């Protein structure tokens, strides 16, 4: 109430003689630019809605139980699904997270707790550089590191490629989240005689948990739809494969293969695959966000 009064008092009507009237040309320019900005917003939102609408429209129609439970059928036979690709994607992502998340969080802890010096700056700069490396180049590197040595494509190689992409993102967000924890919190722990590693793990890291998990999920969502680094690491597979050292199907690879094929049936399945992929990504991110908000993860 009081602030409202103050605000009213602050807006003193300016006497008309204080300012020359704004010319018509200037007013017209102002309106035109506002309209133009509004137009750009509409133009940007248009493809977004178009993509989502088309994805749902095309995807829902082709999504059925067979799609989720069967492997691809040979060309010409209707039916079949992407069950092996869905599982393959999950396996590859699990391998990637298993390697990328601990390393990324560790690097983040290093940057925030031990890296306020020249070495830290080097690591910081390098992770920003790594963030900008094109995903297809990461694929080449994983090919050289894993596939060339093992002499065959594998889910593991795909996991390595995706892990390389996850690490810098996770490291930088973890660092930013840890830096948000007040210095006094750490000092309180030290004052109680808690050792430094214990303070970092049980106090600092714990306080920043929800932020770090959000960062991890963003990194996860970013690599979950990646196709380029899997082309010559996981390679793809039309059949079930449970071994991590064999070529493995991935949802994104399957979508790519089907999308550029000349068959209508495969196009239909590509749309269904894309819908499943988006739902998996959004679902994973939403689930973790909700879990964090309700404190189940933060408390354990």
């Amino acid at each position, binding site marked *: 109430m009081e602030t409202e009064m103050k605000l009213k008092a602050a807006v003193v009507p300016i006497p008309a003689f204080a300012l020359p009237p704004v010319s018509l040309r200037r007013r017209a320019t102002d309106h035109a630019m506002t309209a133009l*900005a509004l137009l750009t917003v509409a133009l940007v939102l248009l493809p977004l809605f178009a993509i989502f609408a088309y994805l749902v429209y095309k995807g829902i129609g082709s999504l059925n139980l067979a799609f989720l439970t069967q492997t691809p059928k040979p060309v010409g036979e209707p039916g079949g699904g992407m069950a092996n690709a869905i599982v393959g994607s999950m396996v590859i992502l699990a391998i990637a997270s298993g390697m990328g998340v601990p390393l990324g969080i560790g690097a983040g802890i290093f940057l925030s707790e031990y890296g306020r010096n020249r070495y830290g700056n080097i690591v910081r700069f390098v992770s920003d550089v790594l963030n900008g490396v094109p995903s297809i180049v990461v694929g080449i590197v994983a090919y050289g590191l894993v596939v060339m040595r093992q002499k065959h494509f594998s889910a593991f190689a795909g996991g390595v490629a995706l892990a390389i992409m996850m690490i810098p993102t996770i490291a930088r967000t973890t660092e930013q989240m840890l830096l948000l924890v007040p210095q006094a919190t750490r000092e309180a722990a030290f004052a109680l005689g808690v050792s430094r590693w214990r303070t970092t793990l049980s106090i600092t890291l714990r306080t920043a948990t929800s932020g770090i998990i959000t960062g991890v999920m963003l990194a996860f969502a970013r690599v979950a739809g990646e196709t380029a680094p899997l082309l010559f690491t996981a390679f793809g597979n039309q059949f079930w494969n449970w071994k991590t050292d064999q070529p493995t199907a991935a949802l994104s690879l399957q979508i790519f293969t089907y999308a550029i094929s000349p068959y209508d049936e495969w196009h239909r399945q590509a749309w269904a695959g894309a819908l499943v992929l988006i739902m998996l990504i959004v679902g994973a991110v939403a689930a973790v966000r909700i879990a964090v908000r309700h404190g189940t993860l933060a408390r354990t």
Partner: protein
Amino acid sequence: MPNQASSRLRFSAPEPEGDRNIAAKVKTRTASLLQGKVSEVPDMIFSGVMWFCGAAVVTLLGLIVYQLVVGSQLSWHAFGWKFFGQSDWNPVSDQYGALPFMFGTIVSSLLALVIAVPLSLGVAVFITEMSPARLRGILSFTTELLAAIPSVVYGLWAIFVLVPILRQYVEPFLAKTLGWTGLFSGAPYGIGMLAAGTILAIMIIPIISSITREVLRVVPQHQREAVLALGSTRWEMIRMGVLRNARAGIVGAIILGLGRALGETMAITMVIGNRPEIAKSLFAPGYTMASVLANEFSEATGDLYLSALIEIGLALFFVTIVVNGLARLMVWSVTRGQPARSVV
């Protein structure tokens, strides 16, 4: 003795660079001295592990460079600098030149920038300066959703929606009105450089607009107020008070978008036509550095072929590193050291 302990238990937790909080430092140092019973071994192990993680990041970059450089040796020795000046790409006769791919990458990225820059700037200006507060959150969230869509899904949509639209409506129209420039001539296939540039533009809009927004936000409020107080209209305020102050940061945002565009692979591979040609018309099919890797790497027979592909990867890596480094410096110069929030 106490000296030694203090040096070992030295406290060097995060502090804002520049002004070091000496009082707090002394306090914690005394605290750790007073209860000198804590074993230091676990602390050393822990910090060792964390150092290892930090070193791993650097090693990773080293590995990438090593792999690319070693892998491309064969091709480098065979062609030298000529590799980047030749437009012959023939696996049968083992002749490799990267020129058509470099041309495709540069043209598609520039085309994407031409389309994306005005749109993203408009969106950023609208969200930070014009939009009602209630709309602001929703709009920035929705534009950032664009960044969460996987590249392959963009490609899928481009093949079945964008390309037919370009073929039926946009390209005939462009040919009729701007055909005389030579940029829009030839048969309107839909698939080609124009389609690649368009889908690429849609993909980099969220990056450019979100970083531009970040940059506009750090322009001090009193800059706006000062210009308004001189009797300017809102647009004049935006032009003189905001955009002019944020120029370097906006350029940085655009270059960051360029960095993303250069390395983008899947969506482009699906619509550019994949033909190593240098054509003047934007309707013609092309090929990019990333696309040739995506299409030919796993099928490359012969060591020289593979090595030539890896050399293209090395060039792509090098260019994106330079472009990104430049962009970060420019964004930093405006946001004053705070790194721009990375987009999904």
